[in-house]
């Protein structure tokens, strides 16, 4: 279980981020290290002033999906940011912003939620990923 799980988050919709947070928390509970690399619209969702905002759903969700997601939230499902906070408390979860995406969005680390541990390039990400699986979401 020593090889890390490496999640590359690209999409910034709440459903995809929720799925990623669940994968992260599950791995953390098993004692598996997790590296999360935030690119493009996923990084945008981690802005400090917007992290708790409504980020919409993936197009395939449709209106039925919207209803289902809302029902789960109403039943007490934690928002993805909260799930990630708990995962970080529990295990070794490192969340890094992609430096190219920082340039793209024109933001600095001070603009990001404290969940984000730092900024790195793709080379550092691969180096930390080691022999572990890389999953793109």
């Amino acid at each position: 279980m020593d090889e890390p799980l490496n999640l590359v988050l690209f999409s910034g919709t709440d459903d995809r981020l929720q799925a990623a947070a669940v994968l992260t928390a599950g791995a953390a509970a098993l004692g598996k290290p997790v590296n999360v690399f935030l690119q493009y619209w996923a990084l945008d969702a981690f802005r400090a002033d917007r992290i708790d905002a409504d980020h919409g759903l993936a197009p395939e969700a449709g209106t039925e999906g919207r209803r289902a997601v809302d029902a789960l939230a109403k039943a007490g499902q934690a928002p993805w940011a909260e799930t990630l906070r708990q995962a970080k408390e529990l295990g070794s979860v490192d969340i890094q912003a992609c430096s190219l995406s920082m340039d793209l969005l024109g933001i600095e680390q001070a603009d990001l939620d404290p969940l984000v541990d730092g900024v790195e390039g793709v080379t550092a990400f691969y180096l930390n990923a080691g022999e572990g699986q890389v999953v793109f979401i």
Partner: protein
Amino acid sequence: MEVLNITQTVDARGLSCPMPIVRTAQAAKVLAPGALIEVLATDPGSTKDLSAWCRSTGNELVEATSDGAVYRFVIRRK
């Protein structure tokens, strides 16, 4: 029948995946070896998840029962 002295109960009823496991792992982190953790959950995935978590982390699944609505597990902390 052996009477189990539960050290701590994790009430994860109403919580969806992966919170029952996250709460269990949080409890296990601070308890002493040998402690008995009772987990109550309603998430239908929790039976497979709890046993997989126990196998993977070396904790012992002592009991796994269900009354149809609530799943109850007792885990002995490694």
